[in-house]
């Protein structure tokens, strides 16, 4: 399988014990506390960024972000693993480098958790006063405010956006049964429910739109490919939860990668269009039995499992001849998780975040004879997502071997510094590492170098597949200076 994928995670941040604090200042302090930032501090190149272009063919009004050089450096930390660590609004954010497959993506997302953890540790050490930072990889403050987790998939431009949307909506609305991170209560006032499947479902109000901060849409139309716009589209999926479980993350991006490949290659899933997707996404999130049915446009009612099975069957047929081990593994896991959900979701206490968290909380309530409204339960919901290993409840489960995982700590450590080898992230990350003083700026689609005569030279990376180790590895290795590198690249 070769599918270019990257995720962006906005983290919740709190500085406890210092009275009133400002989230922007806290985020900036945290990001600048990461000990392995490049000391040369290259800029982030905003030149090619335009989040206001709409895939439906127009440009929205609004201001494009263009911070001055000093502020740019405070906000942005391009990483030698090819990713970006930065401040976005009032949150610290980590974008993985472009990865070649879903398994690699999970690795780089986990590396991001460790980057945040180290930042918290160093921030708490270097700050003055009694207060200390906590950082959460979740999506809600439980008071109606959400911060995002976005998946990005490189898609062939020849597939129409309308087709992508119509094919994806039923899939995205129903996949939460195995991708939800679980949430105690609701962000909708006057709606008392003890627990629901998804962190994010409460926040989606419209079907398709450009917004990400208000009136959030199930399908986001941002058309900012960070690549050659004639050949590529970057599908920006904003409807998912940030996960802690490696298996949940793997299933989330893995099934999505398969569905997108099918659509690109012309296979369609029909007969599953939802009558009211915005309502269904909330209804499905509230059904812990995973059995209730939602209405389809053609008049019948189907369960989320039944709708997912349509996509799974299409994928099994489409990839029947495909021997790629990751494709085979995702298909197998997808079928198994649907079978287990149908039989009894409680079988998934080692794999799927919303079940893991639910089971943990119920065990705790049983032991302490307390109920859903107990503030310790709300605290557990939050602390499940704490990125600090000795505080985060997910990590406690990991240590006790209560959850399934496939990554080793050594691999996660290496991925904090070294880029993936199969995409342009390799060029970006390796140049940042080898020529830290000579990189003037970087972005998804460019690396800009300072050269001897004071001229800044730009290397465009408009094809995310190129700039990989196979193509540029020997060149970067051979070049002793940036001038040599540029001349070898030109030759």
């Amino acid at each position, binding site marked *: 399988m070769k599918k270019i994928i990257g995720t962006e995670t*906005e983290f*919740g*941040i*709190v500085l*406890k014990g210092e009275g009133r604090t400002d*989230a922007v200042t806290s985020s900036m302090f945290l990001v600048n506390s990461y000990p392995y930032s490049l000391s040369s501090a290259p800029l982030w190149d905003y030149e090619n960024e335009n989040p206001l272009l709409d895939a439906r063919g127009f440009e929205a009004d609004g201001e494009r972000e263009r911070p001055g050089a000093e502020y740019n450096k405070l906000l942005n930390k391009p990483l030698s693993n090819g990713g970006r660590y930065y401040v*976005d*609004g*009032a*949150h610290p954010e980590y974008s993985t480098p472009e990865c070649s497959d879903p398994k690699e993506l999970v690795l780089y997302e986990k590396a991001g958790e460790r980057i945040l953890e180290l930042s918290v540790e160093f921030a708490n050490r270097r700050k003055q006063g009694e207060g200390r930072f906590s950082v959460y990889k979740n999506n809600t*403050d*439980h*008071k109606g*405010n*959400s*911060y*995002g987790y*976005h998946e990005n998939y490189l898609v062939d431009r020849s597939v129409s956006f309308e087709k992508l949307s119509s094919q994806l909506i039923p899939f995205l609305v129903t996949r939460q049964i195995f991708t939800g991170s679980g949430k105690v209560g609701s962000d909708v006032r006057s709606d008392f429910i003890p627990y629901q499947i998804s962190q994010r479902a409460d926040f989606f109000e419209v079907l398709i739109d450009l917004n*990400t*901060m*208000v009136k*959030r849409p199930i399908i986001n139309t941002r058309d900012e490919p960070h690549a050659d716009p004639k050949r590529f589209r970057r599908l920006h999926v*904003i409807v998912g939860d940030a996960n802690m479980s490696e298996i949940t993350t793997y299933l989330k991006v893995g099934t999505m990668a398969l569905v997108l490949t099918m659509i690109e290659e012309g296979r369609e899933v029909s007969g599953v269009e939802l009558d009211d997707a915005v309502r269904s996404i909330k209804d499905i999130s509230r059904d812990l039995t995973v059995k209730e049915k939602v209405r389809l446009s053609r008049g019948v009612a189907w369960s989320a499992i039944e709708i997912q099975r349509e996509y799974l069957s299409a994928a099994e047929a489409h990839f029947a001849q495909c021997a790629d081990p990751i494709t085979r593994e995702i298909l197998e896991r997808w079928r198994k998780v649907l079978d287990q959900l149908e039989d009894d979701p*409680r*079988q998934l*206490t*080692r794999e799927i975040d919303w079940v*893991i968290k639910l*089971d*943990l909380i*119920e*065990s*705790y309530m*049983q*032991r302490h004879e307390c109920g859903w409204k107990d*503030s*310790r339960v*709300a*605290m*557990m919901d*939050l*602390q499940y997502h704490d990125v600090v290993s*000795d*505080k985060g*409840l997910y990590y*406690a*489960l990991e240590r*006790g071997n*209560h959850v399934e995982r496939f990554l080793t700590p050594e691999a996660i450590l290496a991925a904090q510094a070294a880029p993936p080898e199969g995409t342009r992230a390799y060029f970006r990350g390796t140049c940042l590492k080898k020529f830290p003083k000579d990189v003037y700026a970087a972005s998804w689609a460019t690396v800009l170098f300072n050269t001897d005569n004071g001229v800044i030279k730009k290397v465009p990376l408009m094809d995310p597949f190129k700039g990989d180790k196979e193509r540029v590895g020997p060149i970067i290795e051979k070049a002793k200076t940036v001038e040599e590198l540029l001349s070898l690249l030109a030759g």
Partner: protein
Amino acid sequence: MSKQVRKGDKKKDTDKKEDVASNPEVTEKGKKLKEDMDKLMDEIDDVLEENAEEFVKNYVQKGGE
């Protein structure tokens, strides 16, 4: 996790009781699961933020994205 403990319990209910009692492996496994679970719950009690009520109340974020 508790599910595993519950799974063990369920087994006891469905299997013949004397089988379980006479099978030291099963008893040992159940005991281990219970111990693991107790250990986990103790750990949570140790690490859970103090003053949970206040902490959760003060956890307010700006909407992002």
